[in-house]
């Protein structure tokens, strides 16, 4: 187990490094001169030169990358070139908002998706299964930004039940919770469908396993067979999927952050890419990549904890 953990952590470092390298290359492959985009028309040649020097833009690309990677290894993500604030401070200011949004979205998606999947699997090909299938596929197919706008128009503008923008007042948990409802509904809706379809497929497979058929043959109650024996095993692929999904949401909540004007890491990265603020983009991507690695690792460890077969194979 310890060896597995060490192996995964080392692999995680490689993944973070690869993500950083990819983002670094993509940023520099983007067309347009970062100095002109960042400074606009007012910048004189001297100011442009100062900016380029500050951003190390005159150094070869490999040197630029090594400077950033070297600083990152010591925990220093550098400073924002405009405000001179520490990138780590900027990123960790925004991260909690994204984590809370991703967590609440995936949680409600699990709470709805898994029961829907189980219901479908218990009576496969019944009218209930077909309706639930339609709903699941529907939630996957509808773009989340559309859901966001519809939800906003209905609940915030027409009915005036829920707030539209922001993350709520700091120090007022109730206000923050009400500000979370619409964004997490919009972000989580697509995941309801994914999780329901995955849970259904896993359940169908498990329900045909010998040990489940034996349980039926022994005359155990259906609730015991389904929830105690079948679901416990069927949920394992879903947990892995949830781990990946949560990691994905750490940078995938950007549309909700823009539409609902919420702070968050996705919006931070988006804004900084648009203004070619390389240090902040690189720092934020590094942190999200690390979070992604940790999340998938935790999901795998949970699977191992729940499934002795996986645990013994580690």
């Amino acid at each position: 187990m310890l060896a597995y953990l060490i192996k995964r952590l080392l692999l995680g470092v490689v993944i973070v490094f690869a993500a950083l390298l990819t983002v670094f290359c993509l940023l520099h492959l983007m067309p347009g001169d970062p100095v002109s985009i960042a400074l606009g028309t007012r910048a004189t040649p001297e100011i442009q030169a100062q900016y380029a020097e500050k951003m190390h833009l005159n150094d070869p690309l490999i040197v630029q990358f090594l400077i950033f990677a070297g600083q990152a290894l010591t925990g220093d993500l550098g400073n924002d070139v405009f405000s001179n604030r520490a990138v780590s401070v900027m990123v960790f200011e925004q991260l909690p908002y994204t984590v809370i949004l991703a967590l609440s979205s995936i949680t409600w998606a699990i709470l709805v998706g898994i029961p829907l999947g189980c219901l479908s699997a218990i009576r496969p090909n019944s009218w209930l299964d077909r309706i639930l299938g339609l709903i699941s596929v529907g939630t996957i197919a509808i773009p989340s930004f559309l859901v966001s706008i519809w939800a906003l128009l209905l609940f915030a503008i027409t009915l005036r039940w829920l707030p539209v923008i922001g993350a709520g007042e700091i120090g007022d948990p109730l206000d923050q919770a009400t500000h979370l409802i619409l964004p997490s509904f919009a972000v989580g809706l697509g995941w309801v469908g994914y999780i329901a379809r995955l849970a259904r497929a896993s359940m169908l497979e498990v329900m045909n396993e010998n040990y489940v058929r034996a349980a039926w043959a022994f005359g155990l109650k259906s609730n015991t067979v389904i929830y105690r024996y079948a679901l416990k095993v069927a949920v394992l692929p879903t947990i892995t999927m949830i781990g990946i999904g949560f990691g994905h949401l750490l940078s995938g909540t950007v549309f909700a952050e823009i539409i609902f004007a919420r702070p968050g890491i996705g919006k931070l990265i988006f804004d900084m890419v648009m203004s070619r603020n390389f240090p902040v983009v690189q720092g934020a991507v590094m942190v999200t990549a690390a979070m992604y690695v940790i999340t998938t690792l935790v999901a795998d460890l949970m699977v191992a904890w729940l499934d002795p077969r996986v645990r013994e194979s580690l």
Partner: protein
Amino acid sequence: MKNFDEKRREFLQVASALGMSAALGGYSIQTNAEGHRVLNARSHLKLASLDPGYMVGGSEITIQWALMPRLANFTFEGGALGWAPSDFVSHLSQPDGSHIDYTLKPGLQWSNGYGELTSDDVKYSFERMLESEWKGDWSALDHVEVKDKYSGTLVLNKAFAPIWALALLSGTGTLVCKKATEEVGGKYTVDVPATCGPYVMDWIPKQKVTLTHNPLWTGPKPYFDKINYISIDAPEAAELAYEAGEVDCTKILAKTHVRWMKSPPPNTKLHVVGALQYMWMGMNVDHPKLKDIRVRQAIQHAVDVDSIIQGAYEGASIRSHGMVCPGLPGQRKESPVDYNPGKAKALLSEAGVSGLSLVLKTLNVQERVLAAQIIQANLGAVGISVKVIPLDSGPFWNMGQESKGDEWKDLQIWLMRYGGSPDPHSMAQWFVKDQVGIWNWERWSDPEYEDLYIKGQLETDPAKRSAIYVRMQEIMENTGAYVWIGHEPEVFAHRSNLAPMFAPSGEEDFARFTAA
């Protein structure tokens, strides 16, 4: 303790206000539970620096005006931009074109124990601008002469009429505390070392700036006790937030302006603060396909600008006849270049050109791509085939600049929009000879234009100045390199019981917001 009659009257006032609001279905500015007047306004807040020398602009200027001193306020008497002494000065005058005298009010205190606002702060603030990122706005300043603790004179190196609009009335005219700024190394970003204005700020990054009364402020008390300046990047999201009652004042899109003019949200007023953007289709006079002026003139006559205004901007943009924007001296109200496809065909035939194909480049923005498609159809109708290439901002802003590669050599026609300060000089500066290959992508130059450019800076008589800029625009149009399109207005929506004060470039002056 208030007597029963007073309480009953207050109760009836509040109840009727609430009843009226409910009946109308709209929102209005309210006081909070503590009896404070609170304003929620939308900001497009990219707060990177509040230092007037190193700011980006926009919402940063709004915050500077709330926190920091300045010599002059903008005014709009009779619809024309003017200036008036600010609350920080007891005297402000311009005895001649190159001198501006000021006297500060005594007793205005900087925060954090930095003492009184003095003439040394004025000298330091303006002279440091000459080394800053915004030194272009202050290029006419020679030095500041300090007479005594509170008074002095700004000495310009020449008479420079745009000094008010470009510098003193803009964000770069903000004063800083000499001692505090020097202590932090002569430059700061978002941690302002000392403030001296009607408000103090509290900032939650990427969320909002909260402005509350400055306890040290001895000037006139602003109407609003608290202003939540809420960061909403997407303009559509801001409009929804306005409709939901979460902000009381927001900038709206031009297309929303058209819609809300017909059917505004309840209890709403729309306020056009200015139209300092100018959009045109440019032509590279050095390009072999466009070297013949008759070809360029044919294109000028072939484009139906009114269709672009209606088709791409839903009628929300103001028809343009030159670079000078509405409300400024020198704005042209009409132009002899009209939409005349017959004349365009005749000019092409006279030039012996047939089967011409051109590439039209534009920023990949919905309205501009639509405009490009209308131009494509217009030019197609006179026998010019056009390929439209929408571009991301990165490559777009490089394509005419010689320092960014060779793309300028292939540049043919493009849609362009610049923004400016409320003075025609700020528009004219990009088309001088020195700007060829930098921001003058049309690549023409004209000695008369150069001469008038200087005269426009020196002339202080409004009528003569206006004539100078009208002539400059005629020269531009005569090059055949411009099809003027429109000036997109800056429009705000706000609650009917709010009387706001905006700069023509769209910044809010919160200290001058009151109830209507």
